[in-house]
Protein backbone atom coordinates (compact mmCIF):
# COMPACT_ATOMS: atom_id res chain seq x y z
CA UNK A 1 0.00 0.00 0.00
CA UNK A 2 1.41 3.37 -1.00
CA UNK A 3 -0.07 6.61 0.26
CA UNK A 4 0.66 9.69 -1.78
CA UNK A 5 -0.16 13.25 -0.86
CA UNK A 6 -0.17 15.68 -3.78
CA UNK A 7 -0.20 19.38 -2.98
CA UNK A 8 0.31 22.68 -4.68
CA UNK A 9 -1.34 25.89 -5.65
CA UNK A 10 -4.81 25.85 -7.12
CA UNK A 11 -4.45 25.58 -10.88
CA UNK A 12 -1.17 23.66 -10.87
CA UNK A 13 -3.03 20.48 -11.61
CA UNK A 14 -2.36 18.45 -8.48
CA UNK A 15 -5.93 17.16 -8.39
CA UNK A 16 -5.67 16.28 -12.03
CA UNK A 17 -2.54 14.11 -11.63
CA UNK A 18 -3.99 12.66 -8.42
CA UNK A 19 -7.01 11.44 -10.32
CA UNK A 20 -4.83 10.19 -13.14
CA UNK A 21 -2.78 8.20 -10.66
CA UNK A 22 -5.87 6.62 -9.13
CA UNK A 23 -7.30 5.88 -12.56
CA UNK A 24 -4.01 4.24 -13.64
CA UNK A 25 -4.03 2.07 -10.53
CA UNK A 26 -7.62 1.06 -11.14
CA UNK A 27 -6.80 -0.05 -14.69
CA UNK A 28 -4.15 -2.36 -13.34
CA UNK A 29 -6.71 -3.99 -11.08
CA UNK A 30 -5.43 -2.37 -7.91
CA UNK A 31 -7.49 -0.95 -5.06
CA UNK A 32 -7.39 2.85 -5.22
CA UNK A 33 -8.83 5.86 -3.48
CA UNK A 34 -8.61 9.55 -4.27
CA UNK A 35 -9.62 12.15 -1.70
CA UNK A 36 -9.30 15.84 -2.53
CA UNK A 37 -9.31 18.45 0.21
CA UNK A 38 -12.19 20.78 -0.47
CA UNK A 39 -13.45 24.16 0.55
CA UNK A 40 -12.09 27.68 0.22
CA UNK A 41 -8.82 26.02 -0.66
CA UNK A 42 -10.31 25.26 -4.05
CA UNK A 43 -10.57 28.94 -4.84
CA UNK A 44 -7.05 29.96 -5.79
CA UNK A 45 -5.42 28.88 -2.55
CA UNK A 46 -3.63 25.63 -2.01
CA UNK A 47 -5.01 22.39 -3.34
CA UNK A 48 -4.20 18.91 -2.19
CA UNK A 49 -5.40 15.38 -2.55
CA UNK A 50 -4.63 11.99 -1.09
CA UNK A 51 -4.21 8.98 -3.32
CA UNK A 52 -3.80 5.44 -2.08
CA UNK A 53 -2.82 2.56 -4.33
CA UNK A 54 -2.93 -0.85 -2.77
CA UNK A 55 -3.04 -4.56 -3.45
CA UNK A 56 -5.51 -5.08 -0.58
CA UNK A 57 -8.72 -3.39 0.41
CA UNK A 58 -8.17 0.21 1.51
CA UNK A 59 -9.46 0.94 4.99
CA UNK A 60 -8.86 4.60 5.80
CA UNK A 61 -8.67 6.83 2.72
CA UNK A 62 -6.76 9.48 4.68
CA UNK A 63 -3.06 10.15 4.13
CA UNK A 64 -2.13 11.83 7.37
CA UNK A 65 1.31 10.25 7.14
CA UNK A 66 1.99 9.74 3.44
CA UNK A 67 4.74 7.57 2.00
CA UNK A 68 5.23 10.09 -0.76
CA UNK A 69 4.64 13.82 -0.94
CA UNK A 70 4.51 15.70 -4.19
CA UNK A 71 4.77 19.41 -3.41
CA UNK A 72 4.41 21.68 -6.40
CA UNK A 73 4.99 24.90 -4.47
CA UNK A 74 6.82 26.11 -1.43
CA UNK A 75 3.92 26.55 1.04
CA UNK A 76 2.69 23.02 0.50
CA UNK A 77 6.21 21.63 0.75
CA UNK A 78 6.70 23.22 4.17
CA UNK A 79 3.19 22.44 5.33
CA UNK A 80 3.28 18.74 4.54
CA UNK A 81 7.00 17.77 4.70
CA UNK A 82 6.83 17.15 8.49
CA UNK A 83 4.02 14.63 7.98
CA UNK A 84 5.83 12.30 5.59
CA UNK A 85 6.55 8.86 6.99
CA UNK A 86 10.20 8.28 8.00
CA UNK A 87 11.91 6.66 5.05
CA UNK A 88 9.45 8.32 2.70
CA UNK A 89 9.95 10.35 -0.44
CA UNK A 90 9.35 14.01 -1.20
CA UNK A 91 9.28 15.35 -4.72
CA UNK A 92 9.45 19.12 -4.55
CA UNK A 93 9.14 21.63 -7.35
CA UNK A 94 12.60 23.19 -7.05
CA UNK A 95 11.76 25.84 -9.62
CA UNK A 96 9.64 27.72 -7.12
CA UNK A 97 10.54 26.20 -3.76
CA UNK A 98 13.56 25.49 -1.62
CA UNK A 99 14.02 21.86 -0.71
CA UNK A 100 15.09 21.98 2.92
CA UNK A 101 12.70 19.75 4.85
CA UNK A 102 14.56 20.06 8.14
CA UNK A 103 14.76 16.29 8.59
CA UNK A 104 17.15 13.63 7.37
CA UNK A 105 15.04 10.51 7.69
CA UNK A 106 13.62 10.72 4.19
CA UNK A 107 14.67 11.38 0.60
CA UNK A 108 13.96 14.75 -0.94
CA UNK A 109 14.07 15.02 -4.72
CA UNK A 110 14.47 18.56 -5.91
CA UNK A 111 12.90 18.53 -9.38
CA UNK A 112 12.87 21.71 -11.46
CA UNK A 113 9.32 21.01 -12.54
CA UNK A 114 8.47 24.44 -13.90
CA UNK A 115 11.72 24.78 -15.85
CA UNK A 116 11.46 21.29 -17.31
CA UNK A 117 7.83 21.90 -18.20
CA UNK A 118 8.73 25.11 -19.99
CA UNK A 119 11.40 23.20 -21.90
CA UNK A 120 8.78 20.60 -22.77
CA UNK A 121 6.52 23.28 -24.13
CA UNK A 122 4.25 24.61 -21.40
CA UNK A 123 4.73 25.52 -17.74
CA UNK A 124 1.28 24.05 -17.03
CA UNK A 125 2.75 20.59 -17.55
CA UNK A 126 4.83 20.94 -14.35
CA UNK A 127 2.44 18.48 -12.72
CA UNK A 128 3.39 15.85 -15.29
CA UNK A 129 7.08 16.42 -14.58
CA UNK A 130 6.33 15.53 -10.97
CA UNK A 131 4.30 12.55 -12.14
CA UNK A 132 7.28 11.37 -14.16
CA UNK A 133 9.52 11.66 -11.13
CA UNK A 134 7.00 9.77 -9.00
CA UNK A 135 6.79 7.00 -11.57
CA UNK A 136 10.56 6.69 -11.87
CA UNK A 137 11.03 6.56 -8.09
CA UNK A 138 8.19 4.22 -7.14
CA UNK A 139 7.01 2.31 -10.23
CA UNK A 140 3.70 2.08 -8.43
CA UNK A 141 1.82 2.03 -11.70
CA UNK A 142 2.94 1.24 -15.22
CA UNK A 143 4.06 4.00 -17.55
CA UNK A 144 1.59 2.80 -20.14
CA UNK A 145 -1.35 3.22 -17.75
CA UNK A 146 -0.38 6.82 -17.09
CA UNK A 147 0.12 7.63 -20.74
CA UNK A 148 -3.20 6.01 -21.64
CA UNK A 149 -4.99 8.19 -19.08
CA UNK A 150 -3.18 11.20 -20.43
CA UNK A 151 -4.15 10.37 -23.97
CA UNK A 152 -7.82 10.07 -23.03
CA UNK A 153 -7.70 13.35 -21.20
CA UNK A 154 -6.35 15.17 -24.23
CA UNK A 155 -8.34 13.50 -26.97
CA UNK A 156 -8.21 15.72 -30.05
CA UNK A 157 -5.43 17.82 -28.54
CA UNK A 158 -2.39 16.00 -29.82
CA UNK A 159 0.00 18.89 -29.21
CA UNK A 160 -1.00 19.22 -25.58
CA UNK A 161 -0.67 15.48 -25.15
CA UNK A 162 2.81 15.53 -26.66
CA UNK A 163 3.88 18.37 -24.39
CA UNK A 164 2.68 16.44 -21.36
CA UNK A 165 4.46 13.28 -22.46
CA UNK A 166 7.69 15.27 -22.88
CA UNK A 167 7.18 16.74 -19.43
CA UNK A 168 6.57 13.27 -17.99
CA UNK A 169 9.77 11.96 -19.55
CA UNK A 170 11.70 14.98 -18.32
CA UNK A 171 10.48 14.14 -14.82
CA UNK A 172 11.65 10.55 -15.21
CA UNK A 173 15.03 11.82 -16.37
CA UNK A 174 15.34 14.34 -13.58
CA UNK A 175 15.41 11.75 -10.82
CA UNK A 176 17.38 9.17 -12.81
CA UNK A 177 20.46 11.35 -12.81
Amino acid at each position, binding site marked *: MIKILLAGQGGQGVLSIGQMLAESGLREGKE*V*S*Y*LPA*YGPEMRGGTANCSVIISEEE*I*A*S*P*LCNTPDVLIALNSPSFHKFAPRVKPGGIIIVNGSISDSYAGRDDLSVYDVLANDLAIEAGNVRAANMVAMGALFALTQLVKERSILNCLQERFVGKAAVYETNVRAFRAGVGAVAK
Partner: protein
Amino acid sequence: MSKILLHGTEAICEGAIRNGCRAFFGYPITPQNEVPEYMSVKMPQIGGVFVQAESEVAAINMVYGAAGAGIRAMTSSSSPGVSLKQEGISYIACARIPCVIVNIMRAGPGLGGIQPAQGDYFQATKGGGHGDYHLIVLAPSSVQEACDYTYRAFDLADRYRVPAMILADGMIGQLMEPVELPPMRDLKEIPEKDWATSGHYGAARRVLNSLIIQPDELEPHVNEMQRTYEEIYRNERRAVEYCTEDAEIVLTAYGTVARIVKSAVNELRKQGVKAGCVRPITLYPFPDDTYAACAARPNTKAFLSVELSLGQMVEDVKLAVNGKKPVYFYGRTGGNVPEESEIVAAAKKALAQAEAEK
Protein backbone atom coordinates in the same frame (compact mmCIF):
# COMPACT_ATOMS: atom_id res chain seq x y z
CA MET B 1 -19.08 -5.10 -15.68
CA SER B 2 -15.78 -3.39 -14.98
CA LYS B 3 -15.21 -0.84 -12.30
CA ILE B 4 -14.98 2.86 -12.99
CA LEU B 5 -13.56 5.64 -10.87
CA LEU B 6 -16.35 7.80 -9.46
CA HIS B 7 -16.83 10.56 -6.92
CA GLY B 8 -19.07 9.73 -3.97
CA THR B 9 -21.57 12.31 -5.14
CA GLU B 10 -21.66 10.82 -8.64
CA ALA B 11 -22.08 7.36 -7.18
CA ILE B 12 -25.07 8.56 -5.18
CA CYS B 13 -26.62 10.00 -8.34
CA GLU B 14 -25.98 6.84 -10.34
CA GLY B 15 -27.41 4.65 -7.59
CA ALA B 16 -30.54 6.77 -7.67
CA ILE B 17 -30.88 6.96 -11.44
CA ARG B 18 -30.27 3.25 -11.92
CA ASN B 19 -33.09 2.44 -9.54
CA GLY B 20 -35.64 4.60 -11.26
CA CYS B 21 -35.14 8.06 -9.74
CA ARG B 22 -36.54 10.42 -12.37
CA ALA B 23 -36.91 13.65 -10.42
CA PHE B 24 -34.28 15.60 -8.52
CA PHE B 25 -34.73 18.89 -6.72
CA GLY B 26 -31.79 20.60 -5.07
CA TYR B 27 -30.20 23.78 -3.87
CA PRO B 28 -26.49 24.62 -3.72
CA ILE B 29 -24.65 24.06 -0.47
CA THR B 30 -21.11 22.80 0.12
CA PRO B 31 -20.09 19.95 0.24
CA GLN B 32 -22.78 18.38 -1.94
CA ASN B 33 -22.90 20.71 -4.94
CA GLU B 34 -21.69 17.96 -7.22
CA VAL B 35 -25.00 16.14 -6.72
CA PRO B 36 -27.27 18.82 -8.23
CA GLU B 37 -24.61 19.59 -10.83
CA TYR B 38 -24.48 15.98 -11.94
CA MET B 39 -28.25 15.61 -11.88
CA SER B 40 -28.74 18.78 -13.92
CA VAL B 41 -26.82 17.11 -16.72
CA LYS B 42 -28.04 13.54 -16.28
CA MET B 43 -31.77 13.97 -15.67
CA PRO B 44 -32.65 15.58 -19.01
CA GLN B 45 -30.68 12.84 -20.79
CA ILE B 46 -32.86 10.09 -19.32
CA GLY B 47 -36.19 11.85 -19.52
CA GLY B 48 -36.13 12.86 -15.88
CA VAL B 49 -36.77 16.15 -14.14
CA PHE B 50 -34.21 18.46 -12.57
CA VAL B 51 -35.14 21.72 -10.90
CA GLN B 52 -32.78 23.98 -9.00
CA ALA B 53 -35.18 25.12 -6.31
CA GLU B 54 -35.23 28.56 -4.73
CA SER B 55 -34.41 27.03 -1.34
CA GLU B 56 -34.02 23.74 0.47
CA VAL B 57 -37.53 24.30 1.75
CA ALA B 58 -38.89 24.48 -1.78
CA ALA B 59 -36.75 21.53 -2.91
CA ILE B 60 -38.17 19.13 -0.33
CA ASN B 61 -41.69 20.28 -1.16
CA MET B 62 -41.04 19.64 -4.85
CA VAL B 63 -40.07 16.14 -3.76
CA TYR B 64 -43.36 15.94 -1.85
CA GLY B 65 -45.23 16.83 -5.04
CA ALA B 66 -43.28 14.62 -7.42
CA ALA B 67 -43.01 11.59 -5.13
CA GLY B 68 -46.65 12.07 -4.19
CA ALA B 69 -47.49 11.84 -7.87
CA GLY B 70 -45.76 8.45 -7.90
CA ILE B 71 -42.34 9.33 -9.30
CA ARG B 72 -39.16 8.18 -7.60
CA ALA B 73 -37.74 11.49 -6.41
CA MET B 74 -34.70 12.65 -4.48
CA THR B 75 -33.18 15.75 -2.96
CA SER B 76 -29.78 16.29 -1.43
CA SER B 77 -28.23 18.84 0.84
CA SER B 78 -25.77 19.32 3.65
CA SER B 79 -26.46 19.85 7.34
CA PRO B 80 -27.82 23.44 7.50
CA GLY B 81 -29.87 22.78 4.39
CA VAL B 82 -31.21 19.53 5.81
CA SER B 83 -32.38 21.44 8.88
CA LEU B 84 -34.42 23.60 6.53
CA LYS B 85 -35.93 20.52 4.95
CA GLN B 86 -37.17 19.12 8.24
CA GLU B 87 -40.61 20.68 7.97
CA GLY B 88 -41.13 19.05 4.60
CA ILE B 89 -39.72 15.73 5.78
CA SER B 90 -42.19 15.62 8.66
CA TYR B 91 -45.09 16.21 6.27
CA ILE B 92 -43.73 13.62 3.86
CA ALA B 93 -43.41 11.08 6.67
CA CYS B 94 -46.97 11.68 7.84
CA ALA B 95 -48.39 11.59 4.32
CA ARG B 96 -46.49 8.29 3.81
CA ILE B 97 -44.68 9.47 0.68
CA PRO B 98 -41.58 7.43 -0.16
CA CYS B 99 -38.57 9.43 -1.33
CA VAL B 100 -34.85 9.71 -0.72
CA ILE B 101 -33.05 12.54 1.04
CA VAL B 102 -29.27 12.78 0.96
CA ASN B 103 -27.38 14.54 3.73
CA ILE B 104 -23.66 15.02 3.09
CA MET B 105 -22.92 16.19 6.61
CA ARG B 106 -20.71 19.16 7.42
CA ALA B 107 -19.68 20.48 10.79
CA GLY B 108 -22.21 22.39 12.87
CA PRO B 109 -24.00 23.79 14.74
CA GLY B 110 -25.15 26.89 12.90
CA LEU B 111 -23.51 27.63 9.63
CA GLY B 112 -20.61 25.73 11.15
CA GLY B 113 -17.89 24.66 8.76
CA ILE B 114 -17.76 22.73 5.54
CA GLN B 115 -15.46 19.92 6.59
CA PRO B 116 -16.73 16.40 7.33
CA ALA B 117 -18.81 15.76 10.45
CA GLN B 118 -21.43 13.45 11.89
CA GLY B 119 -23.28 15.89 14.08
CA ASP B 120 -26.65 15.22 12.44
CA TYR B 121 -26.98 11.67 13.77
CA PHE B 122 -29.69 12.61 16.26
CA GLN B 123 -31.56 14.65 13.67
CA ALA B 124 -31.45 11.82 11.14
CA THR B 125 -32.26 8.89 13.40
CA LYS B 126 -34.71 10.39 15.87
CA GLY B 127 -37.05 11.96 13.36
CA GLY B 128 -35.53 15.38 12.83
CA GLY B 129 -38.69 17.41 12.43
CA HIS B 130 -41.78 17.67 14.60
CA GLY B 131 -43.94 14.73 15.56
CA ASP B 132 -43.54 10.99 16.02
CA TYR B 133 -41.81 9.60 12.97
CA HIS B 134 -38.62 8.09 11.66
CA LEU B 135 -36.71 7.83 8.45
CA ILE B 136 -34.85 4.78 7.25
CA VAL B 137 -31.23 5.92 7.54
CA LEU B 138 -28.37 4.29 5.66
CA ALA B 139 -24.72 5.20 6.20
CA PRO B 140 -22.30 4.44 3.36
CA SER B 141 -18.60 4.18 4.13
CA SER B 142 -17.27 3.88 0.59
CA VAL B 143 -18.10 5.18 -2.84
CA GLN B 144 -19.41 1.75 -3.85
CA GLU B 145 -21.75 1.79 -0.88
CA ALA B 146 -22.83 5.35 -1.66
CA CYS B 147 -24.10 3.96 -4.94
CA ASP B 148 -25.51 0.69 -3.59
CA TYR B 149 -27.23 2.16 -0.55
CA THR B 150 -28.86 4.94 -2.55
CA TYR B 151 -30.10 2.30 -4.97
CA ARG B 152 -31.47 0.28 -2.06
CA ALA B 153 -32.95 3.32 -0.32
CA PHE B 154 -35.51 3.74 -3.10
CA ASP B 155 -36.72 0.15 -2.74
CA LEU B 156 -36.90 0.40 1.05
CA ALA B 157 -38.74 3.72 0.89
CA ASP B 158 -41.29 2.33 -1.55
CA ARG B 159 -41.73 -0.94 0.27
CA TYR B 160 -42.55 0.69 3.60
CA ARG B 161 -43.85 4.05 2.35
CA VAL B 162 -41.28 5.72 4.60
CA PRO B 163 -38.80 8.36 3.43
CA ALA B 164 -35.21 7.16 3.44
CA MET B 165 -32.07 9.13 4.13
CA ILE B 166 -28.51 8.61 2.98
CA LEU B 167 -26.41 9.96 5.82
CA ALA B 168 -22.88 10.51 4.60
CA ASP B 169 -20.13 12.91 5.50
CA GLY B 170 -18.14 15.36 3.43
CA MET B 171 -15.42 12.80 2.91
CA ILE B 172 -17.74 10.36 1.11
CA GLY B 173 -18.91 13.25 -1.00
CA GLN B 174 -15.44 14.03 -2.28
CA LEU B 175 -13.82 10.62 -2.26
CA MET B 176 -13.14 8.91 -5.60
CA GLU B 177 -13.02 5.14 -5.67
CA PRO B 178 -13.65 2.31 -8.08
CA VAL B 179 -17.33 1.48 -8.40
CA GLU B 180 -19.20 -1.27 -10.14
CA LEU B 181 -22.45 0.31 -11.19
CA PRO B 182 -25.65 -1.71 -11.00
CA PRO B 183 -27.52 -2.11 -14.29
CA MET B 184 -30.16 0.44 -15.19
CA ARG B 185 -33.49 -0.80 -13.87
CA ASP B 186 -36.44 -0.94 -16.21
CA LEU B 187 -39.03 1.50 -14.89
CA LYS B 188 -41.74 -1.05 -15.68
CA GLU B 189 -40.28 -3.34 -13.02
CA ILE B 190 -40.96 -0.82 -10.28
CA PRO B 191 -44.26 -1.63 -8.61
CA GLU B 192 -47.12 0.73 -9.37
CA LYS B 193 -48.23 2.99 -6.50
CA ASP B 194 -51.94 2.64 -5.98
CA TRP B 195 -52.01 5.61 -3.63
CA ALA B 196 -50.24 8.15 -5.87
CA THR B 197 -52.04 11.38 -6.72
CA SER B 198 -51.14 11.20 -10.35
CA GLY B 199 -54.34 12.43 -12.03
CA HIS B 200 -55.00 8.87 -13.08
CA TYR B 201 -57.95 9.38 -15.39
CA GLY B 202 -61.15 8.51 -13.72
CA ALA B 203 -60.24 5.99 -11.02
CA ALA B 204 -61.35 6.82 -7.45
CA ARG B 205 -59.75 10.06 -6.35
CA ARG B 206 -56.70 9.95 -4.12
CA VAL B 207 -55.58 12.36 -1.44
CA LEU B 208 -52.18 12.82 0.17
CA ASN B 209 -52.43 14.70 3.37
CA SER B 210 -50.75 15.16 6.72
CA LEU B 211 -53.62 17.01 8.38
CA ILE B 212 -55.63 14.61 10.49
CA ILE B 213 -57.38 16.94 12.81
CA GLN B 214 -59.49 14.47 14.83
CA PRO B 215 -57.46 12.91 17.66
CA ASP B 216 -59.30 9.63 17.16
CA GLU B 217 -58.17 9.55 13.55
CA LEU B 218 -54.63 10.85 14.03
CA GLU B 219 -53.80 8.38 16.79
CA PRO B 220 -54.48 5.26 14.72
CA HIS B 221 -52.61 6.84 11.80
CA VAL B 222 -49.52 7.43 13.94
CA ASN B 223 -49.89 3.98 15.47
CA GLU B 224 -49.94 2.52 12.00
CA MET B 225 -46.73 4.40 11.19
CA GLN B 226 -45.26 3.01 14.39
CA ARG B 227 -46.17 -0.53 13.33
CA THR B 228 -44.29 0.09 10.09
CA TYR B 229 -41.21 1.21 12.04
CA GLU B 230 -41.42 -1.97 14.10
CA GLU B 231 -41.59 -4.03 10.92
CA ILE B 232 -38.59 -2.13 9.55
CA TYR B 233 -36.77 -2.79 12.83
CA ARG B 234 -37.46 -6.51 12.53
CA ASN B 235 -36.45 -6.77 8.87
CA GLU B 236 -33.87 -4.20 8.04
CA ARG B 237 -31.21 -3.87 10.75
CA ARG B 238 -27.79 -4.24 9.14
CA ALA B 239 -24.25 -4.06 10.47
CA VAL B 240 -20.82 -5.33 9.53
CA GLU B 241 -18.53 -6.90 12.11
CA TYR B 242 -14.77 -7.10 11.81
CA CYS B 243 -12.63 -9.21 14.15
CA THR B 244 -15.19 -9.03 16.95
CA GLU B 245 -15.28 -12.78 17.63
CA ASP B 246 -12.38 -12.75 20.10
CA ALA B 247 -12.17 -9.00 20.66
CA GLU B 248 -11.64 -7.52 24.09
CA ILE B 249 -12.34 -4.01 22.87
CA VAL B 250 -15.09 -3.51 20.30
CA LEU B 251 -14.81 -0.23 18.47
CA THR B 252 -17.75 1.11 16.54
CA ALA B 253 -18.24 3.84 13.98
CA TYR B 254 -20.24 4.52 10.85
CA GLY B 255 -19.46 6.12 7.51
CA THR B 256 -15.90 7.01 6.59
CA VAL B 257 -14.90 7.07 10.25
CA ALA B 258 -15.53 3.32 10.30
CA ARG B 259 -12.72 2.94 7.78
CA ILE B 260 -10.25 4.80 9.95
CA VAL B 261 -11.45 2.67 12.85
CA LYS B 262 -10.81 -0.44 10.79
CA SER B 263 -7.25 0.73 10.17
CA ALA B 264 -6.94 1.35 13.91
CA VAL B 265 -8.18 -2.19 14.65
CA ASN B 266 -5.52 -3.59 12.32
CA GLU B 267 -2.89 -1.51 14.07
CA LEU B 268 -4.13 -2.55 17.53
CA ARG B 269 -4.00 -6.21 16.50
CA LYS B 270 -0.47 -5.64 15.25
CA GLN B 271 0.39 -4.29 18.69
CA GLY B 272 -1.17 -7.34 20.36
CA VAL B 273 -4.44 -5.76 21.48
CA LYS B 274 -7.48 -7.88 20.68
CA ALA B 275 -9.64 -5.30 18.97
CA GLY B 276 -12.58 -5.57 16.65
CA CYS B 277 -15.19 -3.24 15.24
CA VAL B 278 -18.84 -2.98 14.38
CA ARG B 279 -20.00 -0.75 11.57
CA PRO B 280 -23.73 -0.08 11.44
CA ILE B 281 -25.06 0.18 7.89
CA THR B 282 -28.56 1.12 9.01
CA LEU B 283 -28.52 3.87 11.61
CA TYR B 284 -32.29 3.63 11.74
CA PRO B 285 -33.24 0.93 12.47
CA PHE B 286 -30.20 0.68 14.72
CA PRO B 287 -28.62 -2.80 14.59
CA ASP B 288 -28.82 -3.32 18.34
CA ASP B 289 -28.77 -7.11 17.93
CA THR B 290 -25.18 -6.99 16.68
CA TYR B 291 -24.05 -4.98 19.70
CA ALA B 292 -26.02 -7.19 22.09
CA ALA B 293 -24.33 -10.26 20.62
CA CYS B 294 -20.89 -8.69 21.12
CA ALA B 295 -21.80 -7.62 24.65
CA ALA B 296 -22.84 -11.19 25.48
CA ARG B 297 -19.42 -12.60 24.58
CA PRO B 298 -17.28 -13.17 27.68
CA ASN B 299 -14.14 -11.90 25.90
CA THR B 300 -15.68 -8.49 25.22
CA LYS B 301 -14.52 -6.11 27.91
CA ALA B 302 -15.59 -2.73 26.57
CA PHE B 303 -17.01 -0.77 23.65
CA LEU B 304 -15.69 2.44 22.16
CA SER B 305 -17.85 4.58 19.90
CA VAL B 306 -15.82 6.81 17.58
CA GLU B 307 -17.67 9.68 15.95
CA LEU B 308 -17.25 13.04 14.26
CA SER B 309 -19.47 14.48 16.96
CA LEU B 310 -19.41 14.90 20.69
CA GLY B 311 -21.33 11.70 21.34
CA GLN B 312 -24.54 10.88 19.55
CA MET B 313 -24.52 7.31 18.24
CA VAL B 314 -22.90 6.29 21.54
CA GLU B 315 -26.32 6.66 23.15
CA ASP B 316 -27.80 4.01 20.88
CA VAL B 317 -24.78 1.81 21.49
CA LYS B 318 -25.38 2.11 25.24
CA LEU B 319 -29.05 1.22 24.81
CA ALA B 320 -28.06 -1.80 22.74
CA VAL B 321 -25.34 -2.96 25.16
CA ASN B 322 -27.81 -2.34 27.98
CA GLY B 323 -25.29 -2.03 30.77
CA LYS B 324 -23.67 -5.42 30.16
CA LYS B 325 -20.29 -3.89 29.34
CA PRO B 326 -18.90 -0.36 29.69
CA VAL B 327 -19.31 1.87 26.63
CA TYR B 328 -16.76 4.65 26.05
CA PHE B 329 -16.62 7.45 23.57
CA TYR B 330 -14.02 9.18 21.45
CA GLY B 331 -15.01 12.02 19.14
CA ARG B 332 -13.65 14.87 17.11
CA THR B 333 -15.72 17.74 15.88
CA GLY B 334 -15.59 21.01 14.02
CA GLY B 335 -14.63 19.27 10.80
CA ASN B 336 -11.56 17.53 12.19
CA VAL B 337 -11.15 13.86 11.48
CA PRO B 338 -9.34 11.62 13.99
CA GLU B 339 -6.14 9.98 12.91
CA GLU B 340 -5.66 6.27 13.27
CA SER B 341 -3.14 6.84 16.06
CA GLU B 342 -5.65 8.82 18.13
CA ILE B 343 -8.15 6.01 17.86
CA VAL B 344 -5.53 3.43 18.80
CA ALA B 345 -4.71 5.44 21.91
CA ALA B 346 -8.37 5.94 22.80
CA ALA B 347 -9.04 2.20 22.44
CA LYS B 348 -6.15 1.31 24.74
CA LYS B 349 -7.31 3.87 27.25
CA ALA B 350 -10.88 2.54 27.15
CA LEU B 351 -9.66 -1.01 27.67
CA ALA B 352 -7.50 0.03 30.61
CA GLN B 353 -10.37 1.97 32.13
CA ALA B 354 -12.72 -1.00 31.77
CA GLU B 355 -10.22 -3.25 33.51
CA ALA B 356 -9.63 -0.71 36.27
CA GLU B 357 -13.34 -0.30 36.90
CA LYS B 358 -14.03 -4.01 37.03
